[in-house]
């Protein structure tokens, strides 16, 4: 098992329960989509798996290790083997795309090498190759604040691909892209994960993209796993139950709950 959670729960600082009693097992090389309404706990789940949050209860095992039982240095080494694609890529506005992508391997580089690379990009070809997969090779030497939201998201994906982690986590990786580009980008991400035998977990708002690209679907609602089954076995009744919204049921456009406006800050 590349990751296993048992009885994992997390409560936000304001006392609001984000996740409770999560049971989840994912084997190496699996590709899993996490779907569910806004505020269901998808991001919290991914942050727990990225060791960016410490679970308040339950057992969490990642890549055969218990991250919160490790020493700080060992945990940093474990983190270098996990890549998280952020919904709003956290890139400094003035940083060049090439530097932002190369930063993916900081966990593997020595301090000397990373300082040198800050002055002159040491592996521009490697960064260009990853950007090329996402059709962004021409933006290599541009600054992050010159890119659009969708382009930035792809730079964030290129960074994690360059990191070449064993576990790829993606939090709404295509939310700022048009449908065609989102489809293409998810295809690239899935193909790369397959070729590298990496495990991929992605949260998605677009259900049809999830069903189309991922063999296994997990439905999360109100901090609990509602269903966990192959994409071919997911029924429309289950999807309706997953996205049912009591508060909006009297509203004339219930579809609004499916696509909340996303604010992608220009980095």
């Amino acid at each position, binding site marked *: 098992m590349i990751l296993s959670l048992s009885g994992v729960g997390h409560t936000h600082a304001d006392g609001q329960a984000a996740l409770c009693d999560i049971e989840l097992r994912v084997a190496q090389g699996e590709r899993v989509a996490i779907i569910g309404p806004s505020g269901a706990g998808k991001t919290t789940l991914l942050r727990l798996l990225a060791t960016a949050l410490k679970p308040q209860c339950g057992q969490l095992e990642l890549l055969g290790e218990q991250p919160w039982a490790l020493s700080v240095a060992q945990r940093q080494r474990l*983190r270098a083997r996990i890549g998280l694609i952020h919904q709003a890529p956290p890139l*400094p506005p*003035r940083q060049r795309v090439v530097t932002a992508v190369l*930063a993916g391997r*900081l966990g593997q580089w020595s301090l000397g090498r990373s300082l040198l690379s800050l002055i002159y990009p040491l592996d521009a070809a490697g960064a260009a190759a990853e950007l090329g997969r996402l059709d962004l090779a021409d933006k290599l030497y541009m600054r992050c604040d010159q890119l659009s939201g969708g382009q930035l998201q792809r730079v964030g994906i290129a960074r994690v691909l360059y990191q070449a982690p064993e576990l790829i986590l993606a939090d709404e990786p295509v939310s700022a892209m048009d449908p065609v580009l989102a489809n293409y980008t998810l295809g690239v991400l899935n193909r790369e994960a397959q070729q590298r035998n990496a495990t991929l977990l992605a949260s998605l708002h677009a259900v049809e993209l999830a069903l189309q690209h991922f063999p296994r679907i997990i439905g999360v609602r109100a901090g609990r796993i509602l269903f966990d089954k192959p994409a071919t076995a997911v029924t429309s009744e289950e999807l309706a139950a997953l996205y049912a919204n009591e508060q909006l049921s009297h509203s004339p456009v219930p579809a609004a709950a499916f696509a909340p406006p996303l604010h992608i800050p220009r980095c």
Partner: protein
Amino acid sequence: MLNPTVTRDPAAPARLLLTLVALTLLWPGLSLSELDLGVLFDGSNAETMGVFLAGFWPPAHDQPFLALLAQATLETLAIATAGMALALLIALPGALLATRALSLSALSRGGRPAWWAQALRWPARGLLIVLRSIPEIVWALLFVRAVGLGPTAGVLAIAITYAGMLGKVYAEIFESVDPQPARALLAAGSSRLQAFCYGVLPQATGEMLSYSVYRWECAVRASVVMGFVGAGGLGQQMDLSMRMFAGGEVASMLLTFLALVLLADLLSRLLRWRFA
């Protein structure tokens, strides 16, 4: 009138009260400092000042004096620059140790470092506080005793005080930029210094440069003041000229200051335009 009931500014009483409080607080300050502007225009005082100021024109510009002025100016610039360089050597590690922006324990705690991590930062903060709480002129007096008259005392005094100021402000600049890039890098396994170089520095460069150049300008002025206690440079030269009532020489030196500050301002603007 559409609404005859609202005729008075509802905030007026509060503002009046604030003004009165400010005045009552200011008055004891004025009387405690024994400020009396009348002394300035009182008989012989005005005459003495008038004679001194009349000597300011024309500014001295004979060849030997200009050579002396050039040398003193270079010495002042050298004191300020060497002092800043030494200060940076202490300030950068100090700021990195004192800042919360690179906390690993804050990563999984919503941005708040653990209490023991915060406690470990206090010695670094304390050091920076001690360094800057003693004015540079006091350090200069101390070092003039220790290493004798000359620029060395000025360099050391500036290095120590400015290390404290730069370190504190750098640490705060690191904390004020967007923390997400550095946190994302830390969460992908990078070390703190790597996260600093790739996540914090690109956002903080402009601010840091602008503040450092401003501090360099302050160091130029401070080195002049310290010259009066024997720490070399333009200040020492000015002290001599004032003692000799050579107003023209003082005027030339003040014009030089003006040029130096102008230069620092231009440099700062150039760097900010390039990096921010």
